[in-house]
């Protein structure tokens, strides 16, 4: 039997208007990014409640990415400004509790940035692969 190489599970919350479209564009342009990234479409990046991030980790994610429109370009005018504040505080708290800060990230990717989407995902998957499995925020019950 072949030994399985560690492949991280990445959850990317993508805003419907920019980043999700960016992912589409990456696909249309046949740009490669790892299949380890699972995309969850949200109406706006500010739809992402801190509990979503924690829940993703609980259910086995090794990295969580929140992608939205560039500040100033939000479809709802100001949604991503709130995301920025919330996530800055949440990530800071996670780091305070000793959870690797590289596992969680906010990225602004517009609908025209298919290449940036692919590059970001490639780079993030590599970062998380280097970090290894998420042990500090996992819920062992889920794997039973």
């Amino acid at each position: 039997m072949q030994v399985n190489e560690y492949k991280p599970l990445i959850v990317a919350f993508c805003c419907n208007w920019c980043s999700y479209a960016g992912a589409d564009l990456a696909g249309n342009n046949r740009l490669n990014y790892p299949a380890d990234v699972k995309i969850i479409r949200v109406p706006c990046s500010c739809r992402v409640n801190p509990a979503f991030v924690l829940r993703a980790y609980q259910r086995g994610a090794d990295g969580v990415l929140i992608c939205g429109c560039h500040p100033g370009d939000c479809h709802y005018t100001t949604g991503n400004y709130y995301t920025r504040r919330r996530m800055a505080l949440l990530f800071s708290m996670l780091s305070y509790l000793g959870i690797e800060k590289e596992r969680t990230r906010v990225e602004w990717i517009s609908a025209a940035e298919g290449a940036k989407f692919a590059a970001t995902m490639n780079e993030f998957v590599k970062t998380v692969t280097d970090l290894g499995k998420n042990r500090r925020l996992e819920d062992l019950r889920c794997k039973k």
Partner: protein
Amino acid sequence: MYKIKISDLPALFDKLSEKYDVFLPVDFDNGAKYKKYEKGDVLSEKLNTVKSPKDFFFPQTEDMMRFKTEGKKIDVIDIREPKDDFIVFGVTECDVKSFEVLDNVFLSEPADTYYAEKRAHGVLISRACSKPSETCFCKTYGIDPSEPSGDISTWKADGTLYLRPNTDKGEAVISVISGILTEADDDEVNKEKEKINKILDRLPLKNLTTEGFGAGKTAELFDRPEWAGLSQSCLGCGTCTFVCPTCQCYDIRDFKTNDGVIRYRCWDSCMYSEFTKMSAGQPRLTQKERFRQRFMHKLVYYPENNGGLYSCVGCGRCLQSCPISMNIVKVMKALGGKNE
């Protein structure tokens, strides 16, 4: 009766932990908690642990079974594993008596096999309370802290620990450590008991009585106007119920895993707004009813169903932990007979 120097206790714990899992109270920042013995752990000097030892037999969270689904097929998986014998060391008499209260609930037919299994494998080594606290009122319920029961009773006196096995389980444990114990007579222990009894006479709550409570008092107490005042600042948190050695309510819930379900039970609290919630809602609409439920259960309903035994042992944990310092003593004084 056997004895061992307190300074030799580490050797005793080392010896015991070769054969058993040994749990003993150890200090943390501002309290004590039970911990599995590891070399170097020191027995706490504190009177009691913040959380009661009911956790050993009725854990706060306990997985009961698992379900796996495949198509339309559901597999029920029994996840119970055979339990080894374990020792809970340093249990005060109030806590020992609390197991009687729990036994009545969990071991009466149909017996709770999860609880029964743990009870069968647990060995209780009790200890006399050489320094009872102002919050103690076990005497109210006829509990004698100078004469602890359990499988083995122990007394501390003059740098020596005295041990007396009471049951076959206790004898079996003594036989493991008999090499480091020496025989002793009862003199020192009797002196220690006397000392403890003198302290008991000085306790501020020594005159608290259960008069006015007990079986058959429901009609008399249920609609008393005092409940409103007593419960008015209750926060509705679960502290009293979770530190209580005799509170036994639990909830059974399902946790969805990635490919199945774990059915587990966890402590529940009558103080919570979600307690016993049914399709028609929660039967106790305000905190007053929830508050009343807790004390009526301890002082009236439980004795009614269990031959007059109260489901409070006077350990005093709720007196120390309640955020607003409302507790069973204040309730008994406000509603009871000669408690003024």
